């Protein structure tokens, strides 16, 4: 596990986008060799998407041979609802780049058979050869995707009922009316993300500080599902200073001392060589 501590949220966004750029470029995807990317939604990755769009416009990156899988989607929310993740992905990313619509997978929360939809999603990931890089954000309670506290750490893509905290946190997007917040979501499981070759988790803001501490300083705990990634062979937590406020000084110092090395490794070394550094 690596922890990259950067100054603020803008720099985190920029760093994350450069990381994606570097990974995709090094992979050199083509028609028979697609790069498979797992994608999050929400406020934290927004800056990363904007930066990636900029890279695309500058001709630095193409998504033509990139396959994407989104982490989650609400159940029963119309696809064109401004809070749906389809809407988010279309407006914040897909419409700006050259991605193949048949290769941009988002869970269908309006599918007639939700269980079958989840199974189909898992199958698609398998058929794509697994995810090369899964990017995620976390909630203040340490959830990754919609794997709420208490979720199994070996879970697969499934229907999840949302925790009250999540409904409460999301009601601001639904006219402050908690009854309008969808109560269920489809989400990849912790196990689904764990299967990815590489995972990058973005954490910014002081309200995520406790979650970050639980994720990296305490044991693996299904009440803080993101902590599972301590056991992933190649996980990268990228956070800003504000998110480190609940960490021990020694933790921060340790990772900050390593940061130059991390940076260099990420910039120059082939992905395989990076696996030795945790």
């Amino acid at each position, binding site marked *: 596990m690596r922890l990259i501590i950067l100054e603020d949220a803008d720099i985190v966004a920029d760093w994350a986008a450069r990381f994606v750029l570097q990974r995709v470029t090094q992979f050199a995807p083509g028609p028979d060799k697609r790069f498979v990317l797992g994608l999050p939604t929400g406020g934290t990755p927004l800056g990363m998407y904007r930066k990636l769009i900029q890279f695309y416009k500058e001709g630095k990156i193409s998504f033509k041979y990139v396959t994407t899988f989104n982490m989650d989607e609400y159940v029963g929310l119309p696809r*064109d609802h401004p809070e749906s993740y389809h809407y988010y992905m279309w407006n914040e990313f897909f419409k700006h780049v050259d991605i193949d619509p*048949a290769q941009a997978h988002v869970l269908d929360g309006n599918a007639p058979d939700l269980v079958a939809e989840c199974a189909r999603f898992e199958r698609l990931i398998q058929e794509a050869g697994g995810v090369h890089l899964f990017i995620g954000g976390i909630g203040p309670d340490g959830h990754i995707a919609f794997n709420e506290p208490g979720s199994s750490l070996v879970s697969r893509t499934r229907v999840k009922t949302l925790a009250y905290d999540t409904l409460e946190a999301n009601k601001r997007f639904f006219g402050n009316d908690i009854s309008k917040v969808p109560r269920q979501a489809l989400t990849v499981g912790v196990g689904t993300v764990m299967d990815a070759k590489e995972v990058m988790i973005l954490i910014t803001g002081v309200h995520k500080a406790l979650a970050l501490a639980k994720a990296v300083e305490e044991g693996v705990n299904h009440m803080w599902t993101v902590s599972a990634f301590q056991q992933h062979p190649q996980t990268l937590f990228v956070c800003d200073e504000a998110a480190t406020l609940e960490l021990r000084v020694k933790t921060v110092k340790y990772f900050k001392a390593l940061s130059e090395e991390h940076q260099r490794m990420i910039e120059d070394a082939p992905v395989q060589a990076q696996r030795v550094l945790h």
Partner: protein
Amino acid sequence: MSNRSELTRFFNCYILRDNKIIREDLWMRDGKIENPEHIFYVEQLKPTRNINCNNVLIAPGFIDIQINGGWGIDFSYDCDNVEKGIEKVATELLAHGVTSFCPTMVTSSKEKYAKILPKIKKSQGGRHGATVLGVHLEGPFISLAKKGAHLDEYIRTPDKGLESIAEVYGSLDNVVIVTLAPELPGATKAIKELTDLGIKVALGHSTASLAQGEEAVKNGANLITHLFNAMLPFHHRDPGLVGLLASTTKRQVHYGIISDGLHTHPAALRIACRTNPEGLILVSDAVAAQGLQDGKYRIGPQSVTVKDGCAYVTGTDTLCGSTAGLDDCVINFKQSIDCSLEYALQVASLHPAQALGIDNKKGKLNYGYDADLVFLHLETLKVQSTWIAGECVYSIS
């Protein structure tokens, strides 16, 4: 050439959508505006044609519901080759961003109606010209006292309602708007019967009181023809037809305004606009002289002199229509009332579509709407290109 099922994406552009100008791509296919998000997720298709718009502003094509002619053609007078005349004007209008229009005939003799009216058919536009939505008949059922440039000898009253009207016009198949004076005997009956046929009734060339105007609106009239012109001036004890802008009748009344900078004082424009912003429609009320130099022309059976860009009844100082294009009217209007750009565009597109009851397919850039578009320079608002049903029918370059 646009092939069927070609999926076009305009990018690098601003579009007018949901009352706002936003930076957004516009997608279209088979002559209709498409929902790209739906195409991406459901059909999983990419555009087959990407057009870089270089930062133009895309607005719904302009709709002119009152235009008497232009480029030497007078719809009310030239009856030998009506189709050709319509086509000539329809083609020229494309350069002004007009994608649909209502050829307008002023008060004429029965013989003229019989000769001309059946030949102005509703027709879908394209490279050959703007869409003809149907004819606007202005007169002869108007007030002698407010005849404007209309000739006395043909003016009459609709005593028997629709019967009198049909007797003068003949077939009403090609007609979409009739302008009449509601105070005339039989007018109320006529309004009811015309609107029952789906024809919109506009009030104008009239000395009607507000009460008479309201009665007309209750019976189906939904338009006022060139507000302020050829009607009683506003009076505080009886505001007349102008009063309909602030009337308590439930229905939205639309009103045509000529904003060529001559027919209506900017302050009068602002009064109308602030009183009833939703109802305002820009019309060109253009005459044969539109697009022509100063000189002598015809409007209906009368001689018209154009001097310094203004059209007068020859030998008088009676204004008889404008020589401005609707694109210029939009620019003038925006400058006159200092309104939002969105609004200035809507009064020439959305509002006329609403008045004609075709705002379910024209006047907006919503998904499923006709891809009738005008590309405007973002700052000068000059027309760069015009599109009808997804096809480029005019381009400045």
